[in-house]
């Protein structure tokens, strides 16, 4: 079901009225099938652009993307992608159920194996809200509907662009656990963009660290924590170790210099 994701030497330049902006500079990436990988980096470093290039929303200025060995355009036409945006992006005139079934209306119900909308609604915990309109739901519930919609066609690659960025910390923590459960059940490849170090480490098998513009991948941190993940793991030394390595990757030695003596005992771990 799941597909691997490869990015070969991809650069992306945007032409503005008076100047060109190099958003991505020779990005290399390899996400094995079925893995959960996060991308972390300062805002404006090209994370959303990278996801858009993978999903064939735009084409790279240089380099190549392969999804299960095929081009993003082919993969998109085969409905391999589930895309979750930072805002839920539900259609306000459709009920929750109709929003989740939008992919079916477009592809045709008989054309393709798909999940049952009822199962998905249960999976994301929206039972009883099938006929509610989006504005009647809280932000967290809307985002869960958006996740269910992204899973409708059983995508082999799930792309998540800061999906919980707008949520409060408690809801966010809960949504992360739910997302991990859903990911484990569906077995897709997942690529999560976030700007929270703790979130990136907690969710992923691997964290890719990106630099300030022009975006480059400057570090790869493997996360050795077992699955399924539990909140307790966030207290483990292995977790702190990874958090520190990601932070070092983001801020370089400057973050390191002041705290050399407390190296294995970080005082502050970024909250979500």
């Amino acid at each position, binding site marked *: 079901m799941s597909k691997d994701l490869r990015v070969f030497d991809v650069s992306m330049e945007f032409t503005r009225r008076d100047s060109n902006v190099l958003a991505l500079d020779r990005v290399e990436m390899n996400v094995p099938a079925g893995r959960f990988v996060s991308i972390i980096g300062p805002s404006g470093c090209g994370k959303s652009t990278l996801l858009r290039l993978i999903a064939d929303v735009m084409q790279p200025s240089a380099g190549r993307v392969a999804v299960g060995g095929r081009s993003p355009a082919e993969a998109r036409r085969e409905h391999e992608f589930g895309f979750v945006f930072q805002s839920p992006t539900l*259609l306000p005139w459709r009920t929750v159920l109709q929003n989740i079934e939008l992919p079916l209306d477009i592809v045709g119900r008989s054309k393709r194996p798909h999940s049952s909308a009822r199962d998905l609604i249960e999976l994301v915990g929206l039972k009883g809200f099938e006929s509610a*309109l989006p504005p009647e739901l809280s932000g967290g519930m809307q985002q869960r509907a958006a996740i269910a919609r992204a899973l409708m066609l059983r995508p082999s690659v799930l792309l998540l662009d800061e999906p919980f960025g707008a949520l409060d910390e408690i809801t966010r923590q809960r949504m992360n656990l739910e997302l991990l459960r859903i990911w484990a059940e569906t077995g897709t490849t997942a690529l999560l963009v976030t700007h929270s170090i703790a979130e990136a480490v907690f969710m992923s098998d691997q964290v890719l660290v990106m630099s300030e513009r022009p975006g480059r991948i400057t570090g790869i941190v493997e996360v050795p924590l077992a699955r399924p993940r539990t909140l307790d793991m966030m207290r483990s030394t292995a977790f702190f170790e990874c958090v520190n390595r990601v932070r070092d990757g983001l801020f370089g030695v400057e973050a390191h210099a002041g705290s050399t003596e407390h190296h294995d005992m970080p005082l502050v771990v970024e909250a979500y």
Partner: protein
Amino acid sequence: MDVAKAKSAFSKVALPMGVLVAILCAAQTLKYFNLLPIFVPGPWDVVMQIWTSPTLVSSNVLPTLYKASAGYLIAAIVAVCAGSLAVLVRMLYGPIYNFGVCINSVPIIATAPLIALTMGNGPQVQIAIAALASQFPMLVGTMQGLRSADARQLELMHVLSASKLQTLRYLLAPGALPFMLAGFKIAAPSAVLGAITAEWVGADRGIGALMLYALFSYDTPKVWLSVLLTCALAASGYGLMALVQHYVLWWDRDVELES
């Protein structure tokens, strides 16, 4: 339903109605004591006109209603087509919008004789002018509505590999509906006023004709009657479209038209 809604319905309908009735009663009282100028009839005299000559009302309201509706319908069809074309072909967007602005800013009273010259004198002149007078809000509503989908929604349709037609059907058209209906609502009174103004230039039937006839024969109550009928017709057009808007849009969507 709930108290807040009932309250807002009260302040929207009952309050203005109450004020209106109070003003009418005051006017009638003043008239009774001969305190109003000679050219202001008592409200009751105006209403009595409907009672004493009902055919006068129907034989003038119906032609105007017909002409305004026909013009409105033609304008709606043309505006929706032109608006869609403008959004579809980016090069035409500016020209179509500016053309709409031009037509909208030429005074009806100036175009009416010109159109009468080219189209002869029959109801077609008033229909054409009703159409010209009402097209702009519908054009703006269509253009603004079809462009109201945000970048994320369009990206979503793209990632789902939706065809152009599917994007129109599932995203653009429903998204445009609130804007279009808002335009349709604003346009309805304009069609009525356009038709009536055009009737001044030459029509033997219609509220505009009645108005002119009453003016020239110094029949003050009939002048006021024709004003009353104009307001009633324009307001019913607006009200009808407001009802359509209320029942067609089930989702919560208040929009502002910008022109």
